[in-house]
């Protein structure tokens, strides 16, 4: 199942490898985020050092793929040719309370005209595009 029509730019790991573990884990239905090995705090998006203690010992750790809707938007006007016939779609910004409230961007699965409540709990839905070239997985969200 794919939330958006095919044809948007496909995500690939950064050439410098900074976010590779995230994409590799997502392909296995696992959410991994960056956590400092020195002060144990999470940060996102991935960075080269911990922004709190400046340690270079930053790695990736599996986390529970659950969070709350921090904000959202319903898009109507397509700004990419692939979405010309898409109709409205919902983007959510999801906050993960178990991970220092880092936030992830994704789509909210289901009716694109559904009402959305800030604060509502959501869980990850791993949207695989195994036949794409290159293959990729999007971490989407659905209401709990």
């Amino acid at each position, binding site marked *: 199942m794919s939330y958006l029509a095919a044809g948007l730019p496909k995500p690939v790991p950064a050439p410098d490898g900074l976010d590779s573990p995230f994409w590799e884990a997502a392909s296995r239905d696992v959410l991994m985020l960056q956590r400092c090995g020195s002060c144990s705090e999470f940060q996102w998006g991935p960075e080269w050092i911990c922004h709190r203690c400046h340690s270079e010992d930053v790695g990736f750790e599996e986390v529970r793929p659950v969070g709350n809707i921090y904000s959202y938007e319903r898009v*109507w006007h397509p700004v990419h040719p692939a979405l010309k016939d898409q109709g409205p779609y919902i983007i959510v910004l999801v906050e993960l309370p178990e991970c220092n409230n880092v936030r992830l961007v994704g789509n909210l699965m289901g009716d694109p005209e559904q009402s959305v409540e800030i604060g509502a709990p959501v869980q990850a839905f791993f949207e695989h595009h195994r036949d794409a070239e290159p293959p990729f997985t999007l971490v989407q969200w659905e209401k709990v």
Partner: protein
Amino acid sequence: MSRTVRGKVAVVGIGETEYYKRGEAPDAEFKLALKAILAACEDAGISPKRVDGFASFSNDRSDPSHLAAALGVDDLRFANMQWGGGGGGGSGAIANAAAAVATGMAECVVVFRALAQGQFGRFGQGPQRDVIAGDGAHTVPFGLMSPAQSFAMKVTRFMHDHGVEQNALRAISLASYHHAQNNPRAVMHGRPLDEEKYDNSRWIVEPFHLFDCCLENDGAAAMVLVSAERAGDFPHKPAYILSALSGSHYRAGASVHNTPDYASSTFKTVVPRLYDMAQVKPADVNVLQCYENFTGGVLMSMVEHQFCDPEGCNEFFVKDNLIAPSGKLPTNTSGGNLAECYMHGLGLNIEAVRQIRGQSTNQVDDVDVALVASGPMVTPVSSSIFGTEATL
């Protein structure tokens, strides 16, 4: 108070090209820049050869060395680019130019911005490539790729937190279009907007209707800055810089929408320094130019510049409060980025100078202090305050 630009630098010349719909400028972007600079120099009554510095923002493509060569500048002393995208650097470029003049690095600096989106591509479109890596890989594949889409979620959260209603955004758009009807330079001159037309306009991305979004234009704008000591030698009434600076809050640049203070226009740390340097209070501001990429950013900027309590937005943001000459705080009196021209906001600074001079097409009575807020929700943002000689 030696470490300040307050009162040390003045704008003595302003110039603009004609403003065009995107893609419709008859001139190349570099020529537009030259035409605006020539117009600003003519307004100041100086030879362009005597300009000795250039400052711009948002990765302007008109390189100062090329400009200096094209204009026959005798002695280039200052070539400056304010980092950061969007309109966040509009007042920051003025701050940098003012700092150069105040410290004697240069004598006569031009701040400019030129845009030809027909020549170089549009802002309001998503990336048209096959794959994407880096920060964009965590947003673009979800259909989050335009400026409107990047900022709507901030505005949604702010409106949620403070109970702000859609009509507050509408009032900002109505005021801009109202002012544009008196401004023959405005691209939307002759195209008035009323409540019904706004309400019936299509959604771009909630909470932005079509008329909540800035235009996309071609053109160029420029202003000439000199030291206050020389400011009396020019034909027009000087607009003194009381304050101009830039900045952003803690981790405003955190990627993938992770800045801790998310529902912000990014001005909270800039504004106290702005008013301190200018030695004015919000109540002293006679007229406001507030960068509109989207109306929601205007609303948040005005709250963070302390013109309105966040819980009082629904009462404050009504059209009558925002229009010249009689509103509580006339705002975007040229029509601004929504209805005059999207020149990445430098046109707003020029309008502030016009208000100080008494030359606006929507002139506010007895203007002594004019404030410009540049670039909400990006990082860094910047603001400037201009004053008449009486404020020094």
